């Protein structure tokens, strides 16, 4: 391979990685407030993309307004999921709650199929124009949006959890629910807020990636799997870990295409994940002896 082709694979890895990272950030939000892995996170993303595509395409809204509408609506779905299901079994085990989110993912998926059908939806990139050429490799303009906003969101979340009262309270709820209540923290409201934020974040991710990937009703599971893998690779609980894990996963996939038959891409990426977790159970950024929360942010 020429150096331009290797550079192209690198850019591809970063672009795809940024998608995984954005999905992973949403996982982290709910995990930070509840210890629960929200398996409906992928559906949040798909819904964000589909709503924007419909708002731009069918309803004819300007893109910025469509984006806001989509993010608000997916955030509202997050609230609804917590209100209708999660909050009803708040004392259930983490496993019970995770199973509930899995069920909800199926409900959202089938509803989307009935509503918009199986065909892919799509809208144009935020900034029109040909991709940027760097030493013979190309970088799509939308990828710059995805990477840029992804990093911006990560910085914002990092600040939110380490420097804001609400962020701190969210962490406290996941670490020790009873102690958090004794501090006067309304655990129910805090968890709901985490669902709203992660819905909005998922919606935002969908808005950003659809011009690259299309939005199809059944994409959620694959996205969730990759976002989850990104979090696991980086270490659950840290905003920066989703970003690091996401980029790592994207680069591994791209690298595997360079040296192996490309059909093996997914299996290579997930094998590396398993291997990495065997060596460092708490992820790349978490210390070996520390458990999940020990480096919460």
């Amino acid at each position, binding site marked *: 391979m020429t150096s331009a082709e290797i550079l192209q694979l690198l850019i591809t890895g970063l*672009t795809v990685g940024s998608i995984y990272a954005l999905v992973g950030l949403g996982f982290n939000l709910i995990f930070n407030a509840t210890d629960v892995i929200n398996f409906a996170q992928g559906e949040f993303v798909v819904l964000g993309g589909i709503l924007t595509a419909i708002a731009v395409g069918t309803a004819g809204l300007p893109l910025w307004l469509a984006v806001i509408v989509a993010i608000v609506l997916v955030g509202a779905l997050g609230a609804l999921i917590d209100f209708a299901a999660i909050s009803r079994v708040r004392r259930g085990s983490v496993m019970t709650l995770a199973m509930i989110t899995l069920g909800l993912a199926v409900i959202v998926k089938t509803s989307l199929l009935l*509503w918009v059908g*199986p065909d892919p939806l*799509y809208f144009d990139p935020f900034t029109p124009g040909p991709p940027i050429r760097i030493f013979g490799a190309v970088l799509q303009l939308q990828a710059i949006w995805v990477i840029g906003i992804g990093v911006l969101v990560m910085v914002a979340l990092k600040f939110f959890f380490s420097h804001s009262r609400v962020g701190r309270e969210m962490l406290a709820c996941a670490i020790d629910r009873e102690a958090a209540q004794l501090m006067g923290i309304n655990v129910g409201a805090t968890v709901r807020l985490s669902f709203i934020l992660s819905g909005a974040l998922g919606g935002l991710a969908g808005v950003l990636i659809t011009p690259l990937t299309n939005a199809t009703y059944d994409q959620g599971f694959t996205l969730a799997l990759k976002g989850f893998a990104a979090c696991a690779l980086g270490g659950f609980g840290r905003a920066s870990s989703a970003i690091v894990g996401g980029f790592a996963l994207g680069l591994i996939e791209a690298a595997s295409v360079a040296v192996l038959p490309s059909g093996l891409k997914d299996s290579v990426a997930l094998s590396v994940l398993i291997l990495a977790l065997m060596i460092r159970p708490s992820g790349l950024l978490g210390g070996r002896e520390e458990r999940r929360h020990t480096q919460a942010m």
Partner: protein
Amino acid sequence: MQGLSRWSAGWFAVGVVASIGWAHAQEEAIKLGVSEPLSGPASSLGIPVVESIKTAAEFINANGGVNGRKIELLIRDDQSRADVAVQNFRRLAEEGVYGVIGPNQGSNALAVAPVLLETKVPMCGFQNTISITKLDNPYIFRCQTSDTDNTRAALKFASEKLGAKNVAVLYTGDAYGTEAYAALEAEAKEMNIPIVAAEKINYGASDTTAEWTKVLSAQPEAIILWGSGSTMSVALRNGSQLGNTAPIIGAQGVAAAAIIKSAGAAAEGVYMVTLNAPDQVTPEQQELSRIYKERHGEDYALTIYDIIGWDAVHIYAEAIRQSGGDKAKVVEGMEKTQGLKLAGGSYTYTAESHEGLGSDSVWIVQVKDGATVGVQRGF
């Protein structure tokens, strides 16, 4: 609205069955089963096919029926699921159908194959998948072109019309893509066209730039893209973003309207192997085209789904005429089909070959201004 059309299709089906059954009960109608996806992921294929099946049955019935007998359709939704398809085929056999039209998905065709051996009821399937007629199952008839012919057409077009000295292949990892790739490999060897790169894309993948990078590094003179679903429009976009200038020839799965639409400018100029050039109405398509224009407006251009459903009903009607209306002899009747000219092309079934359409029916079309126009027919 998908939901709405699904419901209306379902109710319409019930209505057709009820009204036809009511009016001609004393005539003993010929029952034809239909098992197609009216819901689930493949419903966007099944719904238009069922409309065309119903249109054909109405047309035949209005023109005297088959040997004076009316066709009665028993329409069942397979929900895009193999287990439901199997159930449908068993029920339809119990209800005494002469044959079944469907299923739509290749995997469902493989699932119902053993049922056909038991019930001895034939099926007309809409698969390109090569293997379905290679199962040594006398009850499976293909009402489509085979990817053996489609891949040959793609290669011939690339070398003869486009002058490509070599090709690269991008294909999906499902049966549709891998079977086609195997056929391409064999055919390319025979035609002495080197395949300089071949990359497998995961079905449903949301990015194909890495695969494209590898393919483009081999500097192919033409690129064959074989797969279906959302990934195909991503692949078309990725190819154009990476600055590919080599012509692309896509499979029938790429020729879907939704994929061309979501690929946008990236689909312009792309060639596709398919069964129909919407801009060129053949004499056999005129009746169907007239009915659909009455129904959907003057600008309506026939799609492949409109064609294959219509043809399947006509094939059965002809076979039943051949067998003198004897249900036990439908398969024999089918195998007497010689050069039956219908909307999709010229159908021939023999005891040896259940392929139906040959490479003479294959169209290569090209995307121009978001629509497909015919370039060449017959290979």
